[in-house]
């Protein structure tokens, strides 16, 4: 039986809204995806200089100069700011330029929540590279011989791989490796990880040489072997390495050590390597950047100007609306366009949070008796109030003076060493963030503004 025209219209609108809710799902999109929006090409450059262009430039300069040594760069981004999306674009552009690119998803080979040391980082990356080769269909004997030497080195340093059922069997013909098992042990067995760290602690130089030797062999087999065009290794997810509870400080200090004292170990001759790193490393210790060929932090979308009034950046807000319209008919969700502007502003240019806000708007519209009615200002303000209220949970009273100082000066200064851990946490939770328009400046998120007033 057919329903009334009204009920049919309601059903249709509910289906549209269900699609809209899903359109705002949180996931990185590649440049070929129709939802992808090129902020770097938008008028007014909402993120300042294109970060991908900066990373590519360092590679191209080294290639043009004929230096066969490669480069070593850092790339950071705030949680949910679109970093993985930009890395997907970087890979696509480099491949289009004729580079061989290996992208290792760090999360698949590293336990991101346990202390990390340079040695076990390199072992994990070697295994990650092995997995990529395996996925590319590289023949098994090649993989065995590549990693076999590496594994033999571990055996020589008394890391007992057999004891842990780490997927390694030693036979007369050499080590046989089950990469999947080895990965499981490395990411899920703290005892195994601790033993690897313990045994390798005194052998870092040897290990680095082994790793470099391994990567040189990978280049021979995998790369196009052009002396002036080094292949590219992108290591993603390292910015997510962080502890919870009492291990938090230890892990943070470990990351500082890796990217500061052991920066030399992260350089791989003959490769352009891009390491992702937690944003606080570069933002809180500017001297780290001197250790790398380039250090880039992906800023938030600049939705307000760097002036006292924080006047709206009209061009950027228009760009964000264009980005949202790629996901669906967002204009049908609200009465007035100014409501969209307000949602964008309160998100502080944080893309993941903005998508979550739009998802919430679609949800609320769906819940209405007549879902074809757009949400009015009172309703969107309620959603924003809820968002601001929960966002402020990341802030403690003792943070307020410091946040006030950042908001006034638009720069990040640490009152004392003890504040370092807290500062990294506030950067990590995007309470403190950076924007760029020619220069990089700091500010606090929109919800945090209310707290310091």
């Amino acid at each position: 039986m057919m329903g009334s025209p009204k009920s049919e219209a309601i059903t249709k609108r509910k289906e549209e809204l269900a699609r809209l809710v899903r359109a705002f799902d949180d996931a990185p999109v590649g440049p070929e995806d129709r939802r992808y929006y090129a902020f770097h090409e938008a008028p007014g450059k909402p993120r300042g200089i294109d970060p991908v262009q900066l990373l590519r430039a360092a590679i191209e300069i080294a290639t043009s100069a004929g230096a066969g040594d490669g480069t070593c760069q850092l790339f950071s981004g705030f949680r949910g700011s679109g970093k993985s999306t930009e890395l997907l674009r970087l890979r696509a552009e480099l491949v289009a330029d004729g580079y061989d690119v290996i992208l290792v998803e760090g999360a698949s080979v590293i336990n991101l929540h346990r202390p990390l040391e340079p040695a076990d980082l390199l072992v994990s990356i070697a295994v990650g590279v092995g997995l990529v080769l395996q996925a590319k269909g590289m023949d098994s004997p090649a993989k065995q011989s590549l990693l076999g030497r590496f594994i033999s080195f571990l055996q020589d340093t008394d890391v007992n791989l057999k004891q842990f059922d780490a997927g390694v069997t030693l036979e007369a013909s050499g080590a046989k490796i089950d990469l999947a098992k080895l990965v499981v042990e490395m990411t899920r067995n703290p005892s195994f990880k601790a033993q690897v760290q313990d045994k390798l602690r005194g052998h870092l130089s040897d290990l680095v040489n082994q790793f470099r030797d391994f990567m040189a062999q990978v280049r021979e087999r995998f790369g196009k072997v052009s002396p002036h065009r080094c292949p590219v290794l992108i290591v993603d997810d390292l910015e997510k390495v962080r502890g919870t509870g009492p291990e938090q400080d230890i892990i943070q200090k470990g990351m500082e050590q890796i990217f500061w004292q052991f920066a030399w170990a992260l350089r791989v001759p003959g490769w352009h390597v891009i390491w992702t790193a937690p944003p606080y490393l570069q933002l809180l210790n500017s001297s780290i950047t001197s250790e790398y060929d380039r250090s880039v932090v992906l800023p938030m979308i600049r939705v307000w100007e760097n002036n006292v009034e924080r006047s709206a950046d009209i061009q950027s807000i228009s760009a964000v609306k264009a980005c949202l319209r790629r996901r669906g008919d967002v204009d049908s969700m609200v009465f007035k366009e100014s409501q969209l502007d307000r949602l964008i502003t309160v998100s502080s240019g944080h893309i993941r949070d903005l998508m979550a806000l739009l998802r919430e708007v679609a949800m609320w519209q769906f819940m209405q008796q007549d879902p074809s009615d757009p949400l009015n200002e009172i309703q969107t303000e309620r959603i924003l109030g809820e968002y601001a209220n929960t966002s402020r949970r990341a802030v403690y009273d003792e943070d307020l003076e410091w946040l006030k100082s950042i908001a006034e000066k638009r720069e990040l200064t640490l009152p004392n060493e003890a504040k370092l851990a807290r500062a990294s946490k506030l950067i990590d939770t995007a309470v403190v963030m950076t924007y760029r328009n020619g220069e990089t400046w700091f500010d606090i998120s929109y919800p945090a503004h209310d707290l310091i007033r």
Partner: protein
Amino acid sequence: VTYKSIDEVWKRVLPELELGRGLRFIFIEIKEPIWAIALRRRLENYLKSKGESLRMPSVYNEALNWLDHEQMQRGTLKSPEVVRWVPLSAIVEDDPYSGTFVLHRLNEGRDNLRRNLNGPLFLVGGSGMLRRIANEAPDLWSVRVATIEFEDSEDLDFFEEPTRPAEVAPFPFDVCLHGSHDDIDFLQALQKRLITDGITVCTVADGVRPGETISNEIADCMNKSRFFVPLLSPRYVESNWLEFGFDKKRQPIFAYRTLPIMLRDVVPPTQLQHLSYLDWRTPQKIEESYPKLVRTILDARHTSPLPAPSAIS
């Protein structure tokens, strides 16, 4: 911005059940555990009406086990849409072996869980939970799809609307026996005797000291039982837990019947004054009315699954 009634919370939660895709983390901060259980009950009834059930660990270790297990499913197809409920109320008590530990593990496994699981995952806890998640589990925090803070208001009256019989989940226990610590021996003896007579019993003998609030354990036991049997004594009546077991109209907040038993001379608390009670102040009276108690409980198994609050006389 806080939610003031369970209806309001439910209104927000429902579209997440119907529209979402993939794993959705929903954080709900509720001060009193009793309201969390009421919300869970509504969720269970909703799922039951659709022929589905709620996945919930009974103890924290179990939560870790099934999260571990499900994280290990990598390489296989994503799990079907399943609604999961993880109580984190213990995180405010700073117990490293319960809520906090589960929270940290969830945070660590976020990406794997999102790769492998589908459906809403409710994380429900008491005061301070949202702040703890924001600061201790930033990975989870950054992908939250709904954050709900519930505060019960003075005129809260969500039990006005009775649950429809078709939606009522079966009771795992016939009886929830509840008594003071002073009567623990009696409580255990009665439990043993009822079990011998074929009655399923859930007992709680703590959380009834003066000044204590209702514990998760009691609320859970009440929620799962067809009959609630309080053992009345002066010490029991001094406790304030009954304030949580009944609403302002003296209606029990779950769909149980209340069968008070008077063990010693005591003025019944306000919430129970409208009910008749079994007088068990002497051994002789116990033996006289015990068969009646058993018969009432067993008969209820064959009647409507939604008992009206009443008592036997």
